[in-house]
C-alpha cells in the first residue's frame, strides 16, 4: 500500500449561519483499549442533506459513525465533542437513550425484531409512550410509506418481519428508525447485503428522505456515494483526509489519496 501523508487534509468548513448543521463533531478520537482507531474526527454535517463516508475497510468510517450515537460506548473510549443542536451529546451527563431517539441508526445487515411487521415499528413507539391505536397505525403507515415499503406490505402487516426479503427487511429497519422521528439518521452500509433492485429502491427512499432528515451513511460503493449523497468524507487509516461536496470529490479531489481511491488505484 502506498503511504500517504496523513497530515495533508482538506476539510471543507461551513458557515453555520448560511448552512444550518444537523450534527458536528469536534476532534473526535476513538480508542479500542490501547488501539487508537480514529484520530482527528472534525466534521460538519449540513442539515437535510446526505453525507457519505467512504474509505477502505478498516479506515475507521464505521467506527466514526457508530460513535455518533454512542453505540461504541461499551467497547471503546470516545473522546471529543459531538454537537447536536449545540448540545455535546458525547458528554457523560447525556441520557443516551433519549439522545438515540434524536439520532437514529440503521445497520449493515437488516435486523428486524422477530415480531410482526406492524409490531416492528409499533413496539418501540409503544415503549416510547405512544398508546393510542389510531396514532400507532398512522405512524406505522407513514414511516413505511417514507421507507418505500408500504405498497409491498400493506396487506399483511401481521406477518413475521423475518419472512420479508433482505431488501424489504432493510427498508423496514429504516421505517422503524424513522418512526421514532429522529433528526439525524445514521446508516452503516445499508445496501451492502442487498441485490441491485433492492438497492435501487433503497436509494430512491433515501433520496426522498433527505428533505426532512440529516442523513449520514457509510458506504463501500463509490457509485452509490456519487449517486445519492450531497457531501462526501474520505477516511483513511483512522484519519479524515478530505471532506467536500460529492460532486467536487468525485471530479477534482484536493488530495492525492482521495484521487487514488476513487479512481480505483488504491493500495
Amino acid at each position, binding site marked *: 500500500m502506498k503511504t500517504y501523508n496523513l497530515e495533508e487534509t482538506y476539510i471543507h468548513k461551513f458557515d453555520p449561519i448560511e448552512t444550518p448543521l444537523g450534527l458536528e463533531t469536534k476532534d473526535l478520537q476513538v480508542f479500542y483499549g490501547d488501539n487508537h482507531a480514529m484520530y482527528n474526527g472534525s466534521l460538519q454535517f449540513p442539515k437535510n442533506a446526505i453525507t457519505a463516508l467512504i474509505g477502505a475497510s478498516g479506515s475507521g468510517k464505521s467506527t466514526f459513525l457508530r460513535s455518533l450515537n454512542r453505540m461504541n460506548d461499551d467497547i471503546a473510549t470516545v473522546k471529543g465533542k459531538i454537537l*447536536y*443542536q*449545540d*448540545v455535546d*451529546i458525547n458528554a457523560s*451527563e*447525556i*441520557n443516551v*437513550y*433519549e*439522545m438515540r431517539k*434524536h439520532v437514529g441508526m440503521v445497520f449493515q445487515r437488516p435486523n428486524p425484531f422477530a415480531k410482526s411487521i406492524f409490531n416492528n415499528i409499533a413496539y418501540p413507539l409503544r415503549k416510547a*409512550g405512544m398508546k393510542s391505536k389510531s396514532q400507532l397505525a398512522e405512524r406505522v403507515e407513514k414511516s413505511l410509506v417514507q421507507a418505500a415499503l408500504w405498497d409491498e406490505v400493506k396487506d399483511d402487516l401481521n406477518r413475521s418481519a423475518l419472512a420479508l426479503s433482505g431488501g424489504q427487511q432493510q427498508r423496514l429497519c429504516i421505517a422503524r428508525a424513522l418512526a421514532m422521528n429522529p433528526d439525524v439518521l445514521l446508516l452503516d452500509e445499508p445496501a451492502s447485503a442487498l441485490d441491485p433492485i433492492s438497492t435501487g429502491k433503497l436509494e430512491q427512499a433515501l433520496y426522498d428522505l433527505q428533505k426532512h432528515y440529516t442523513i449520514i451513511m457509510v458506504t463501500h460503493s463509490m457509485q452509490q456515494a456519487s449517486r445519492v449523497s450531497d457531501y462526501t468524507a474520505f477516511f483513511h487509516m483512522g484519519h479524515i483526509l478530505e471532506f467536500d461536496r460529492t460532486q467536487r470529490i468525485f471530479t477534482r479531489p484536493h488530495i492525492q489519496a482521495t484521487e487514488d481511491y476513487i479512481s480505483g488505484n488504491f493500495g
Partner: protein
Amino acid sequence: MDEIKRQLTKASKATRQDRYGKWIAFICTFLIGLLVVSIFYLVASKGLATFFRGHISLWDFLTHQDWNPGQVSKNGVPSVGALPMIVGSFSVTVLSAILATPFAISMALFMTEIAPKRGQRFLQPVIELLVGIPSVVYGFVGLTIIVPVIRAIFGGTGFGILAGTLVLFVMVLPTITSMYVDSLRAVPRFYREAALALGATRWQSIYKVVLRASIPGLLTAIIFGMARAFGEALAVQMVIGNASLLPHNLISPASTLTSVLTTGIGNTVMGTLPNNALWSLALILLLMSLGFNLLVRLIGRQGRFTK
C-alpha cells in the same frame, strides 16, 4: 438550546428502567453468589474441622486407604483415609466424560447440522426424558442389567468402576448434549455458509468452522456433565459396589466420594469426627471439581491459541 439540552440530559423512563433492571439483575446474581459462599462456608467449616479439631493429618487423609472414622485404630487416631474414594470419583467422572463426549458431540451435530428437523423432533424429547429418570431407577437398571453383563464378560462380581462409568455415561449424556446443542446454535449461520460457499464439504465446514467456533461451549458442557457425574450418588452407589477399597482394576468394587458421603451422613451425628470426615469428602469433591474446571478452561484457552 436549553430546552433540547434539558430534554437530552434529564433522566427518562429508560434510564430509570435501566437502573432498576441492573439492580434486579445484580441482586439475583448476588443471591446466587451468597448461596455459593454460604454453601462453601458450610462445607469448608465442617470439612476442615476434621483436620483442625479432629487432629487428622491432611496428608494421611489424602494418601491412606483405610476409611473407618467411627473407630480408633491401632495408632490411637481414627483411620480417615480417603484415597480410595478420591481415586474412585476421579475415575468414574473422567471415564464417563471421555466416553460421553464423542456421543454427545455426534448427537448435537446430528441435531443441528446433519438432520436438524428430524433430529430436533425426535432426539430432543428423548434427551429431556432421560434427565427426568430418577437416579434410583438408573441404579436399579444398572444393577439388573449392566452388572450381570459385566460379570458374565469379565468375571468378578460385576460391581466396580466400569459399571459406574456406564451408568454415569447415560446420566451425563443429556446434560452435555443439550448444552452443546445450545452453543452450536450460537455459531452464526453465515460461518457455515461461508465455508460451504468456498467449496468445503459439510464435514469440512463442521470440522474446520463449526466445531472450532464452539469449543468454549463444548468445554462448558463437559464441565457441567462432569459436575453431574461428581455429584451423583444413588445410582453410582448401587453399581460401583461402594467398598472403600483402592480399585486395582475397572471391575473390582470401589467407591466414590459422593456414595460414601450419602451412605454415611444419616448415620452420624453432626459435630462429631465421623460426620466431619464426611464433610471433608464433600470439600475434596468441591476442590476436585474446581481443579477440573480450571484445567478444562486452561485447555480451552490453549485450544483457542492454536486455532
